[in-house]
């Protein structure tokens, strides 16, 4: 990661400890701003216009962004997945319901392939064109209802991780966020500079999907203070050397 490289270079010069601290601040600032981007993306996914079907292209692009951030945070080891049973029940329920609403747009036809399309595909001659008759068009009403009724049973890996994201989001209360950001005195538009200019240097390895997401051990303190705690810890190490 670009910021990490900066850190290592500064450590070599003992008179440049200030530079190292500035580098660390950049690291922390990057993490905070990346977290902010993640939060923003999740809010976008949740805020679906429920009267009209949400735009699938937009949802896919936002979800891919969330996935990228997740993968990078996993590689950094900053990804903390709170164990499901530790989460409060009430906010989880609330989040799940909005998640289902967003998922509904994707999943209306999810379980059952549309009639006629899944069965008769061939790669053979042109005469094997498979027609979609509009007589069969009224899609399976059961699948829609099924999706709504049984959300928990059908959680795939993506939604497990989405839940983890939601839980992380929920454990940070608003006042906590403000304290974190009070240290960051750069204006909001710096988010652009930081995030568009640099991204985790190592490309994510072959994507195992989100099944490969290993929950990291929770920090010693409650997670909303953990970023600052980690910063102190790292500074201690540097100062000792």
């Amino acid at each position, binding site marked *: 990661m670009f910021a990490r490289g900066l850190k290592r270079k500064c450590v070599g010069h003992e008179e440049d400890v200030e530079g190292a601290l500035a580098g660390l601040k950049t690291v922390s600032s990057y993490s905070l701003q990346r977290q902010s981007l993640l939060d923003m993306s999740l809010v976008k996914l949740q805020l679906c216009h429920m009267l*009209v079907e949400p735009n699938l292209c937009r949802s*896919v692009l936002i979800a891919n962004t969330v996935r990228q951030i997740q993968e990078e945070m996993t590689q950094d080891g900053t990804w903390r997945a709170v164990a499901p049973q530790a989460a409060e029940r009430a906010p989880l329920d609330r989040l799940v319901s909005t998640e289902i609403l967003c998922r509904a747009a994707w999943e*209306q036809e999810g379980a059952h392939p549309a009639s006629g399309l899944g069965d008769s595909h061939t790669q053979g001659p042109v005469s094997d064109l*498979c*027609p979609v008759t*509009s007589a069969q068009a009224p899609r399976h009403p059961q699948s829609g209802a099924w999706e709504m009724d049984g959300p928990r049973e059908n959680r795939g890996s993506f939604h497990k991780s989405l839940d983890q994201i939601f839980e992380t989001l929920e454990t940070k209360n608003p006042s906590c966020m403000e304290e974190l950001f009070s240290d960051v005195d750069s204006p909001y538009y710096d*988010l652009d500079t930081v995030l*568009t200019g640099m991204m985790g240097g190592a490309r994510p390895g072959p994507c195992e999907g989100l099944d490969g997401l290993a929950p990291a051990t929770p920090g010693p303190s409650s997670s909303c203070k953990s970023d600052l705690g980690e910063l102190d810890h790292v500074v201690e190490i540097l100062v000792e050397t």
Partner: protein
Amino acid sequence: MAGAGGGGCPAGGNDFQWCFSQVKGAIDEDVAEADIISTVEFNYSGDLLATGDKGGRVVIFQREQENKSRPHSRGEYNVYSTFQSHEPEFDYLKSLEIEEKINKIRWLPQQNAAHFLLSTNDKTIKLWKISERDKRAEGYNLKDEDGRLRDPFRITALRVPILKPMDLMVEASPRRIFANAHTYHINSISVNSDHETYLSADDLRINLWHLEITDRSFNIVDIKPANMEELTEVITAAEFHPHQCNVFVYSSSKGTIRLCDMRSSALCDRHSKFFEEPEDPSSRSFFSEIISSISDVKFSHSGRYMMTRDYLSVKVWDLNMESRPVETHQVHEYLRSKLCSLYENDCIFDKFECCWNGSDSAIMTGSYNNFFRMFDRDTRRDVTLEASRESSKPRASLKPRKTQEKAASAGGPVWFRPRRGARQALLLTWRCS
């Protein structure tokens, strides 16, 4: 109705000079949501311009015959026909509204006195016939002039009805309705060069229709994964090749274009050609994928090239070379450093269109704040023009604009930030005649 119309014509040498020919639509700032134009398209001859709006209406403008006494006057466009193409619907199974907004209009090549066009919203495509009536029959035997039936026993003489001229009436009638074939939102329709078939594309599937047959369509592309949770890519645009009726392309949200040949297999899930520009690792960011998503793809008239529009650039591809585009033109590079803010206010998801001129020598696309950009491929010059009705009088030449990042001042940079709802030149069509 809100919108602007402009015309370009070469003036002196090969330089293009642009000026407003006409401005159609509402003058005031407050425009009703339903009046916002969502698609525009010239027909093949350039005599007709069709616009579709968010309220499901189609308005067609016709170019007036140029007056022989004023040979240099540019033909003006006046309203020719207005009709309600689509109505809002409600999908009871999903409890969701289906918007009546017209997503795309495509004209059919003219084969007789009537004009035909396809218009589509998210779910249903309709074939409309627009025909003129300028004569009326009078002198019927069985009914009066006001239409009441005459008593047959009172008719003592027979007469032949005669045709009398009447005020021109333009009628639009729906001839075909192609419904219930798309689960997802239709983003493209494209008429084939065989003039008998057309394709319609939604986020995950492309269907092939015959213009005469409404109860059946053939699925030719299906990228829906078996498990929807694995969905990472959607179809964003599709178009038939202008001359080869078996070839079409479709673009994706990951910045790829696939060219398919319908002769190779019934289901064209395996592409014949795959166009993708390798990513520049030094400019990678969290927004790389979003800005690479292709919003429009258009073949050149020659059929040799195609053009794609992503968020920041237009690229021209040679169909014979899949590895990279032959031309890349930056549309609004100054936005590259603002991507996070554009993501926050959703501007990064705006879909711009692009178009070729009649000779394929120039390409054009829109930008924010009513700017549109034209790139001359021969001279390698580009120009930015502003299509703003306040700043331009009709028939006055548009002055090229420079876009510049305002320099950082002591208090912090002030930069040009497209806002949601700010005017965007998203739609373009170039009259090719």
